[in-house]
């Protein structure tokens, strides 16, 4: 069995399992798994920018949180008591302010477009994209690379979180937006504890995987990998490195924003903790555990880490130890499995000696062209990033 066949089988099996799960889960677990699938979408976003283009963004939570807030604003306004002005603004307004969304508190006019849920849904993807384009434009045009990109994105995420917490009258501050209406499209309600929201998430996930795979196995993906391996060489070959990086950074932010919206649908709140540094770094670890350069791997990594995490937090013995296990997982994954679960899967399929047993020693793929995973390890080992 070649690696290609094996991975196609793996994709199909994964999709089948994801689609079949609600048949066997109760409503609590349907909701939990739906949230894990949302995290998987985040991990795919990381895999696209980090695994393929080598851009390690530690501010992915910013885009995730923005997506969540955009939809949450619309769903807040969809609750009847929040008309014409949301409760959180009434609590924080000046005593004699006009009770209208235009001017009840400073900046409240920003909420006006979100009276329409459709606007909220579009903004959930478009606004993170625009922000990423702005950040990315400045970063990449200045040829900021490597760890500086990580630190700048991290700093942006911290600023975003601080601003949201600080602007209590506008954003709900530390408590964020809760008591949301259910998302309703064309009279159809998405119940977070029922299969409807689950399938919304699952189908989005599958669509994102397929689209990302289509895009990244094509020309764009090859150029991005070339940039990851050696940026200067790609530039000398005539590729517009900056625009390629900008593109994938924006797409990745858009995917994170999409995941954020689905998070609002499944968990019915949006808080500043979605933009926390720890969540942004966790997303990277999900992707690393599953395999940074594999879309399916990143996705499975997010599922496994979160699933085990929530199992552990339900047991009184394991709950206090879980962060330690998670920390060890970071260390072990980085030290011993730089390609994550996907790397192990690939090594198993391509294991040496198999070709000999099949009677075709010379035809083993490994001798003819270098293994993708090997290239990745080599690139990681080279001190070029330094």
């Amino acid at each position, binding site marked *: 069995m070649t690696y290609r066949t094996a991975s196609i089988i793996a994709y199909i099996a994964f999709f089948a399992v994801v689609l079949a799960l609600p048949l066997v889960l109760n409503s609590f677990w349907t909701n939990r798994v739906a949230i894990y699938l949302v995290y998987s979408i985040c991990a795919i976003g990381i895999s696209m920018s980090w695994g393929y283009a080598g851009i390690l963004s530690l501010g992915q939570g910013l885009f995730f949180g923005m997506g969540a807030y955009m939809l949450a604003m619309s769903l807040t306004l969809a609750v009847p008591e929040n008309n014409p002005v949301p409760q959180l603004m009434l609590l924080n307004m000046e005593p004699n302010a006009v009770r209208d969304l235009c001017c009840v508190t400073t900046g409240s006019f920003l909420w006006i477009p979100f009276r329409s849920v459709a606007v909220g849904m579009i903004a959930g993807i478009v606004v993170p994209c625009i922000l990423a384009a702005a950040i990315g434009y400045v970063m990449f045009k200045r040829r900021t690379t490597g760890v500086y990109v990580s630190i700048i994105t991290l700093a942006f995420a911290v600023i975003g979180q601080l601003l949201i917490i600080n602007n209590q009258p506008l954003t709900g501050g530390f408590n964020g937006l809760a008591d949301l209406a259910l998302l309703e499209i064309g009279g159809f309600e998405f119940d977070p504890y029922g299969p409807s929201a689950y399938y919304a998430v699952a189908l989005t996930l599958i669509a994102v995987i397929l689209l990302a795979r289509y895009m990244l196995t094509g020309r764009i993906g090859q150029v991005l990998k070339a940039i990851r391996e050696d940026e200067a060489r790609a530039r000398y070959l005539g590729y517009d490195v900056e625009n390629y990086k900008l593109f994938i950074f924006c797409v990745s932010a858009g995917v994170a924003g999409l995941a954020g919206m689905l998070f609002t649908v499944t968990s019915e709140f949006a808080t500043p903790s979605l933009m926390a540094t720890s969540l942004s770094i966790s997303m990277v670890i999900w992707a690393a555990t599953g395999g940074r350069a594999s879309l399916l791997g990143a996705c499975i990594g997010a599922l496994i880490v979160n699933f085990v995490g929530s199992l552990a937090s339900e047991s009184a013995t394991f709950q206090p130890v879980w962060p330690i296990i998670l920390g060890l997982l970071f260390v072990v994954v*980085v030290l011993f499995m730089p390609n994550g679960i996907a790397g192990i899967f690939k090594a198993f399929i391509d294991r040496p000696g198999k070709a000999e047993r099949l009677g075709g020693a010379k035809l083993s793929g490994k001798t003819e062209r270098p293994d993708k995973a090997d290239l990745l390890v080599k690139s990681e080992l080279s001190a070029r990033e330094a």
Partner: protein
Amino acid sequence: METFVIGLSIASILFMVALGLAIIYGTMNVINLAHGEMVMIGAYTTVLATKHLGFNIYLCLPLAFLVTATFGLIIERTVVRRLYGRLLDTLLATWGIALILQQLIRIHFGLGLFGVEIDGLGSDLQNVPVPAELQQAIQLFGANIPVYRAFVFVTALALGAITWLLMFRTRFGSQLRAVSVARNTAAACGINDKRVNMLAFAYGSGLAGIAGVLVSGFKTVSPDMGTPYVVDAFLVVVAGGVGHLLGTFASAGILGEVQSFVATWANDVYGRTVLFAVVIFILLFKPQGLFVTKSR
């Protein structure tokens, strides 16, 4: 004037944390996200030593240095050593270590699981008693200056001076600088670069531990107190220019004052926001840092 002094003390803490980080990042190209946890461990050393051993805060300074340097040594030997040359991976692995250390404090080093609890550990907030002579304020240029803030500033200056002496007046210092400029050449000349790495990592961690002792005097101590420091300190390091003692010193000063003045003028959140914005601009327009004239 008060604002300026508060800024100075913020800058002093930033400087001590950033100095250790700068040595580690400059020498071995490792981003140590567990550095903030060294501050936290330094603070907890103070809590424990004052509670159980009756130490005062002065005695805690060397003690915390030793404790955190030992932690640093262990981290370097077990994890960081295997990751040289993989910059982004060090960032992830040390974040994992940071998580582990925080949780170890929360669960009383695992004893909590067996019902044994050590007074001073756990998830609660802790406070450290400050000696009476440090609680007073002195009058200077018509302004009230808390003695503690001055103490922090003086300690930071002293540590800066010690580090300068260590770097430029000792054999170890010249080895360290040689390794950070050209590791392979230095190793070929007979310098044991692994040993230099190890000691530099331990020394850097120790500096953060001392910062932790001083922080514990004016802030409550909690297991997750370290994370903000590592981000701020890293920004100081890159803004000042990697591997430049004076650059770190100056950028810690500037950023501390910026934060303090904006915080007084608006509020804490805007203080930090402006701080980050300043650093982002520095990074974008002068990625080698403010005080580096040529890049190597």
